[in-house]
């Protein structure tokens, strides 16, 4: 078999040589035979005549030789392709409509598929991608679904879980890198020594971190990403051993990562050792995960996820035996979840992507149905020609392959256009925030996608050609020759199929419309949720004070004080405050707080709460509402008194019928001595912490900044001018105070809110776009079928007009047809919309999966489109003159 393919391939690639050689061989045969005949005494003329006669027709022999070599099929294909291309060129209207439809539908699918392929399907770009897992602690009954892993977890699990051959801990943060005046805040990662081996990644240069480099005094080493090495070190091949500054401290470069290395969606450019103090590794710190510390592991070959899970569960159970906190953690539903790293990383986006792919596939379906209808109509126009050719001896195979070749040429051209549309679509998706998706920056448009495009286009071509081929074959030969010429309604089956297609199209477009409606309404409802603060005219930006330059609280508070007074002095600023983390920053974690005198009810566990440290006039700058008592002010930070402010959710939960003022609470999960207690001095309104669509009122506590150990710092400024205009001023002010300090992530709160809605907005806009295209396609489809129906029945209508039918009756007949199609389509669509609504329930916000006004709206839109589409054909039908009935016969 292989040999034959090779022989065919050789004959195809060296086609000219093949033809030339064959001609030469056959001619030489004839000449030799002629010579032999002459030699045996035959006259030259007679010899030439006889040799040619005995050899037979040269052309026939050559054709048989080609066939013997398997070339005939290809010759035929080329011939048919030429014929098909000529036919397509001859009907530019059809060809352009078909190509545009294909380009849009295939382009939309390829765009979404490119995202799905890159985000969901392709393995992570690490040699060890297959066996990578992540682990996180969960305390569901405390309201904390994910709490990462603690340093203690890491040291306790390392080497003790047989299912893992490597375990690593990491954490993303930022660092100030560079010399005074030209410092930049860089995203960095702290990783344990096994991190790169766990992924299977080898450094391009230098070495990885060692165990000795994990203490606070020995961690002055760094590994550079390839990008940082190129952009900041001039791709210096001697960079190993050189020094860079991290938060003002000199660290030595010991390695460079290979180009393109990126851990999941991290933008880290520098890697430092994950160092910790011995007391951070003790059992009492076992539950201090705090969502920023994450753990990954690699499964030993042959080990399974469930084995790993069982071993982790067993270890947790053993360790909890002599843990004083065990009871409390068990009450909180504590467990450690082991999950595949890739699946876990993209879990949040998976349903959205699948929904969008379903939407774009529906679009493709509608487009394909349109094309099928167009092609059926076109084929009907050529039925006579087909029938005649079959009658004259064209084989059935020939007719089918001709239809196939024509359709496949069409869809392949459409596929090429679709590929171009898809490439544009990816760029368009970037506007929708695709690069902010998990793994979103990995979205690739490459040979693999092109292969999918052409394969898909080819398959689509075959599917599209089937009904046409079937009708061409069912060969109502004589029948077609007669009936189509009479313009009668010969092929009822074809008509039923055409109408069925329009019904399917209306139903699918209806489903898409409903889906877009549900998502749009969800978005609207999410947007109308109040964040709990006044986001207008608020500018925020992040600073991080390195511990090396600001080693103690007094120096940090001095900096805060200076910053607050400098900013407050600026014109255009009405209030300014500081906080360790703003709402909706995307990184809002919870920690435990314990209320004095609160007795846990049965089944109730410790609760996690959002906690913040505030300085200056944070509450007024952010626009919080005050329910009771007072806000914290800059004075409170200065005085260092142990007081705090809680939000209404917190107050309602712990003191439902009492005033929260004067109550006491403790940081952490235990009640300690009274001098550590914080006294509640105020109750503020609840704000949305992680997103506008969050539903759980978890409660928040605000402490004076000085009493929160956190090195993050956000500046919050309420302005009287447009907030964005203050951005540069703020950055300059910070540099004036300390030239080493960059300010980053400068954005208004309105922008942060907008950004937090991206998960609602993008799917809503995309499905909206899909359904708009679907409506257009449906209109085209309905119009095409109806105007064809009119043109088929011109003769009949003419006769009826001649017999006295009124134009209104004729128009009514076609409007009634459109109405029937519409009703059938909508009825089917309602069923589909019900199913679709249920399937996308998890993506909806405050909207039921079946929403009557949306169904009604979609039905109205479909009705409008259908009637618009049938207006012109029915009008045309009504204007057919009686004379036409006669001349048409």
């Amino acid at each position, binding site marked *: 078999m292989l*040999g*034959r393919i090779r*022989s*065919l391939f050789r004959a195809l690639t060296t086609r000219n040589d093949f033809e030339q*050689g*064959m001609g*030469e*061989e*056959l001619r*030489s*045969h004839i000449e*030799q*035979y002629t010579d032999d005949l002459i030699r045996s005494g035959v006259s030259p003329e007679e010899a030439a005549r006889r040799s040619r006669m*005995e*050899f*037979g*027709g040269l052309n*026939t*022999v050559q054709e*048989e*030789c080609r*066939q*013997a*070599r*398997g070339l005939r099929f290809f010759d035929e294909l080329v011939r048919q392709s030429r014929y098909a291309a000529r036919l397509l060129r001859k009907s530019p209207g059809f060809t352009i409509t078909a190509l545009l439809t294909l380009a849009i539908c295939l382009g939309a699918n390829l765009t979404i598929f490119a995202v799905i392929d890159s985000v969901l399907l392709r393995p992570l770009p690490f040699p060890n991608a297959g066996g990578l897992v992540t682990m996180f602690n969960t305390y569901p009954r405390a309201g904390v679904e994910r709490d990462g892993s603690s340093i203690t977890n890491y040291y306790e699990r390392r080497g003790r879980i047989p299912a893992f051959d490597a375990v690593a801990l990491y954490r993303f943060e930022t660092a100030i890198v560079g010399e005074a005046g030209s410092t930049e805040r860089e995203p960095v990662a702290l990783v344990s020594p096994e991190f790169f081996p766990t992924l299977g990644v080898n450094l391009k240069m230098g070495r990885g971190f060692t165990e000795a480099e994990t203490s606070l005094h020995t961690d002055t080493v760094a590994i550079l990403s390839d990008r940082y090495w190129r952009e900041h070190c001039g791709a210096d091949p001697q960079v190993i051993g050189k020094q860079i500054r991290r938060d003002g401290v000199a660290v030595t470069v010991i390695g460079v990562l290979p180009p393109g290395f990126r851990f999941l969606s991290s933008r880290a450019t520098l890697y430092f050792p994950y160092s910790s103090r011995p007391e951070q590794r003790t059992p009492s710190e076992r539950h201090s995960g705090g969502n920023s510390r994450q753990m990954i592991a690699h499964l030993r070959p042959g080990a399974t996820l469930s084995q790993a899970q069982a071993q982790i569960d067993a270890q947790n159970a053993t360790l909890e035996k002599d843990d004083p906190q065990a009871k409390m953690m068990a009450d909180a539903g504590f467990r450690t979840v082991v999950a595949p790293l890739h699946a876990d990383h993209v879990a949040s986006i998976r349903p959205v992507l699948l929904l969008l792919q379903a939407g774009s596939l529906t679009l493709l379906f509608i487009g394909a149905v349109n094309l099928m209808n167009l092609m059926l109509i076109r084929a009907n126009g050529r039925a006579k020609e087909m029938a005649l050719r079959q009658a004259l001896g064209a084989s059935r195979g020939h007719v089918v392959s001709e239809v196939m070749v024509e359709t496949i040429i069409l869809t392949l051209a459409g596929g090429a256009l679709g590929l171009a549309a898809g490439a544009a679509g990816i760029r368009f998706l970037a506007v929708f925030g695709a690069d902010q998706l998990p793994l979103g920056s990995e979205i690739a448009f490459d040979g693999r996608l092109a292969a999918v495009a052409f394969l898909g286009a080819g398959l689509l071509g075959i599917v599209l050609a089937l009904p046409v081929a079937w009708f061409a074959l069912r060969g109502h030969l004589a029948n077609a020759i007669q009936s189509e010429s009479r313009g009668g309604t010969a092929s009822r089956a074809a008509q039923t199929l055409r109408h069925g297609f329009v019904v399917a199209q209306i139903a699918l477009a209806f489903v898409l419309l409903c889906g877009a409606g549900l998502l749009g309404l969800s978005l609207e409802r999410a947007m109308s949720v109040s964040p709990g603060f006044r986001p207008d005219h608020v500018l925020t930006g992040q600073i991080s004070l390195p511990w090396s330059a600001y080693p103690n609280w007094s120096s940090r508070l001095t900096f805060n004080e200076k910053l607050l007074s400098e900013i407050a002095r600026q014109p255009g600023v009405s209030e300014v405050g500081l906080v360790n983390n703003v709402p909706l920053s995307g990184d809002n974690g919870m920690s435990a707080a314990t209320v004095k005198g609160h007795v846990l009810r049965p089944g109730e566990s410790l609760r996690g709460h959002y906690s913040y440290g505030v300085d200056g006039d944070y509450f007024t700058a952010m626009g919080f509402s005050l329910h009771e008592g007072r806000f914290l002010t800059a004075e409170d930070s200065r005085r260092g008194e142990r007081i705090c402010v809680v939000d209404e959710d917190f107050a309602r939960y712990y003191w439902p019928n009492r005033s929260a003022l004067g109550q006491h609470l403790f940081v952490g999960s235990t009640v300690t001595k009274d001098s550590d207690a914080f006294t509640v001095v105020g109750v503020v309104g609840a704000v949305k912490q992680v997103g506008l669509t969050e539903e759980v009122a978890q409660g928040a506590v605000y402490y004076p900044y000085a009493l929160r150990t956190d090195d993050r710092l956000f500046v919050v400024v309420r302005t009287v001018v447009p907030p964005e205009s203050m951005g540069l001023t703020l950055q300059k002010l910070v540099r004036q105070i300390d030239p080493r300090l960059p300010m980053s992530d400068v954005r208004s709160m309105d922008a942060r809110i907008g950004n937090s809605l991206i998960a609602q907005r993008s799917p809503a806009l995309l499905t909206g776009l899909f359904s708009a295209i679907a409506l257009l396609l449906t209109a085209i489809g309905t119009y095409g079928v109806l105007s064809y129906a009119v043109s088929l029945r011109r003769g009949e209508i003419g006769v009826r007009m001649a017999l006295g039918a009124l134009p209104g009756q004729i128009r009514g007949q076609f409007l009634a047809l459109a109405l029937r199609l519409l009703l059938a389509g909508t009825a089917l669509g309602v069923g589909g919309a019900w199913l679709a609504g249920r399937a996308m329930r998890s993506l909806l916000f405050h909207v039921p999966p079946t929403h009557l006004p949306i169904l009604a709206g979609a039905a109205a839109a479909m009705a409008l489109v259908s009637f618009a589409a049938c207006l012109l054909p029915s009008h045309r039908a009504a204007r057919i003159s009686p004379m036409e009935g006669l001349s048409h016969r």
Partner: protein
Amino acid sequence: MAKNADLLPGTLDMLILKAISLEQLHGYGVLLRIKQISGGALDIPQGSLYPALYRLEHQGLIASEWGQSENNRRAKYYTLTALGRRRLREETAGWNRLAIAMAAALNAAPEET
């Protein structure tokens, strides 16, 4: 001229393989050779020789290369491949079995039945 026998279907391939197995031949040579080894009894329609050669080459049973013929013409010479040699052996054996069986069957006398 002796009375020519008609070719049975499928036998042309066998004859070509046999002719080429004796020595490397060009197309016209194959024709002459078959005539010669069959004692002139088998007459091959000239037109059907080449499609058969191309088919055999396509099947990998024979290989071809261009060379100089005895009277200094460029000619395409065919040789048998290993696969072709095996096929020829099998076909020959098969043919012989068939021929013996046919002869026995056709020579059967009434009392032997």
